[in-house]
C-alpha cells in the first residue's frame, strides 16, 4: 500500500456511510475478518467501497492459533478469499485459542506457554501465513487469571514466534495494561522486554472494571474511550519505538463516528512527534 498508515479506527456497519466520505491522510479502517466471511451481500459491498478509498486492516478473531490442532482448512480458504478481494494493508490474529473438538468458543482463550505449545503455534502460524501469502501480526492477549505451567514469559514467547515464523507483532497497549493489572506485573517492565522491532501495529481500546471484583480485575471490554493511563503508556512507547500504525478499537457501546475519529486524532498527534523526543522521556 503506497499510502503511509498513521492512525485508524474500527469500522462497524453503523459507521459505513460516514466513513466512506471522511478525508484524513493516513487513516485506515480495521474490521474483524470473520464478519465478512460470506458469499455476498451488502456488507461485503460496503467494504468494497471503503477499500476503494482507504487501506484496510483485516483482524482475525477465530483462527485459534494457540489450539492443539492445525487451522481449519475452510477457514483458511475464507481468509484467502478475503485477502484476495480486499488486498489488506495489515493482517493480524491473536495469541489465543477458540476452537476445540469442532466447537467454537467466541472468546480469545489463554494457554500455558510451553515449548510444545510454541512449536504447535509456530506451525499453525506458518500454515496461516503460507495460505494467505502474507506476514501476519500476532497480538498479545488480555489475560484474566494467572496460569501455572508457563515455560516462557509472554515477551520471550512472542520473540520466539517471530524468530520461528518471521511473523510480525500487534502490540495491544490496552491488553498489556489490563493483563499487567490482572496478573500483577509491571507494564513498563513488560514493554522493556517486548521485541519492539517486530511491531507492525498498535491497538488502543477502552476497558472496564469487573462488576464483582472491581479494579483488581479489568476487562478488555472495548466499550469505552481509551483510558488516560493507557494513553500515557502509548505515548512513552511511541517515543521510544517510533511511529507504528495505530488503531482505536471499539466494538461495544459505539459512540458517534466523530468521537472515535477525535480519539484517532490524538493518536495521530502523538505519532507525529519527533522520535528524538525519546531521549528526554
Amino acid at each position: 500500500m503506497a499510502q503511509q498508515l498513521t492512525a485508524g479506527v474500527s469500522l462497524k456497519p453503523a459507521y459505513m456511510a460516514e466513513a466512506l466520505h471522511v478525508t484524513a491522510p493516513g487513516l485506515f479502517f480495521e474490521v474483524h475478518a470473520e464478519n465478512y466471511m460470506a458469499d455476498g451481500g451488502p456488507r461485503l459491498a460496503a467494504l468494497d467501497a471503503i477499500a476503494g478509498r482507504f487501506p484496510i486492516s483485516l483482524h482475525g478473531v477465530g483462527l485459534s492459533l494457540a489450539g492443539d490442532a492445525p487451522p481449519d482448512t475452510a477457514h483458511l480458504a475464507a481468509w484467502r478469499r478475503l485477502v484476495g478481494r480486499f488486498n489488506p494493508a495489515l493482517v493480524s490474529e491473536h495469541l489465543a485459542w477458540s476452537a476445540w473438538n469442532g466447537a467454537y468458543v467466541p472468546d480469545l482463550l489463554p494457554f500455558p506457554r510451553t515449548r510444545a505449545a510454541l512449536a504447535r503455534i509456530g506451525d499453525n502460524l506458518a500454515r496461516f501465513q503460507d495460505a494467505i501469502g502474507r506476514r501476519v501480526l500476532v497480538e498479545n492477549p488480555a489475560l484474566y487469571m494467572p496460569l501455572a505451567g508457563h515455560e516462557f514469559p509472554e515477551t520471550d514467547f512472542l520473540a520466539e514466534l517471530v524468530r520461528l515464523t518471521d511473523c510480525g507483532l500487534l502490540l495491544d497497549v490496552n491488553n498489556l495494561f489490563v493483563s499487567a493489572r490482572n496478573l500483577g506485573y509491571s507494564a513498563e517492565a513488560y514493554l522493556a522486554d517486548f521485541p519492539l522491532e517486530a511491531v507492525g501495529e498498535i491497538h488502543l481500546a477502552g476497558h472496564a472494571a469487573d462488576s464483582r471484583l472491581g479494579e483488581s480485575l479489568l476487562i478488555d471490554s472495548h466499550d469505552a474511550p481509551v483510558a488516560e493511563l493507557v494513553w500515557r503508556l502509548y505515548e512513552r512507547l511511541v517515543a521510544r519505538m517510533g511511529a507504528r500504525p495505530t488503531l482505536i478499537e471499539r466494538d461495544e457501546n459505539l459512540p458517534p463516528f466523530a468521537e472515535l475519529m477525535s480519539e484517532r486524532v490524538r493518536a495521530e498527534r502523538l505519532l507525529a512527534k519527533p522520535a528524538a523526543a525519546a531521549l528526554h522521556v
Partner: protein
Amino acid sequence: MSELARFQQAFVEALCGDFAPLAPWSSRSDGEARFSVYRNTAAKGLADALSAQFPTVARAVGEGWMRAAALAFAREHRPEAPALHAYGGDFPDWLAGFAPAGEMPWLSGLARIDWAVRDALFAADCAPLDTAAFAALSPDDFGDTCAALHRSATILWFDDGTAGLWRDLQADPPSAEAELAPEPGGLLVFRPRLEVSTRPLGYGAYAFLRACRAGESLGLAGQAALSAEPDLPLANLFGDFIAAGVFERIRRSPDAVW
C-alpha cells in the same frame, strides 16, 4: 493427548460449569472468580449473535427472554465455525420444542423467517434475470420452460398468521396492533440486489413458486397455482415476480435438474 490438548479440554469443561479439571493450572485462590470473565464473554458472544440473527424473535419476546432462550440453546448447540453470522440455523426448530415458548406457537415461525432473511443477506450476489428474457417467451413455450428462483430466495408457508405477524413486527416502532391474524399465508424472502425484499404470498402464489423451485415447467407451475386458487390473476402475478427480480434464469428443458 498433549498437555495443550488436556488444558483445552479442562478449560472447556470449566466453561461448561465444572472448574475442577482446570484447577491444576489455576495458580491463585481467586482463579475461579477470575475465570468467570471467560464464561461471561463466551455467553455474551453467543447471545449477541443469536439476537442479531433473530431480531424479530427478540422484538416479540423482549431482550431478557431472548437472552435466556439463547443461552439455553447455546448449551446444546455450540457454533461450529468462527463466523458467528452463520450460527443459529437450528434455533427455529429448537424453539418449537422449547417449553417456555409453548404459549407462543408462532415463535418458531418468526425465527424461520428471520433466518431466511439472514440467508438472503449473505447469499452470493447474482443479478436477477432481465425482463427481456421473458418477453421473448410465448405461452406455447411454457410447457417446456422452467424458471429458477433467485439463489437468495426462501419461500415459506404458515397455516396460522405468522407471516403477517412477522411483517407487522418490522414496523419501527412495532405497530401496537401486531397480533396473530388467523389467516394462513406465505412469505417470499429474497435479495435481488443489495436489499432484502419480502412479499406476502397467497395460496396460488405460493403454489406457483413452490413448483418453480421444484423444477416444474412454467405450465405446470401455473396449473398448480390455479388449482390452489382458481381466481388467481396468474399473468399479473407472474409479471410482478419477473419485475421484482424473483427469477435467476430460465431454461427450455423440462428434464433439467435444478
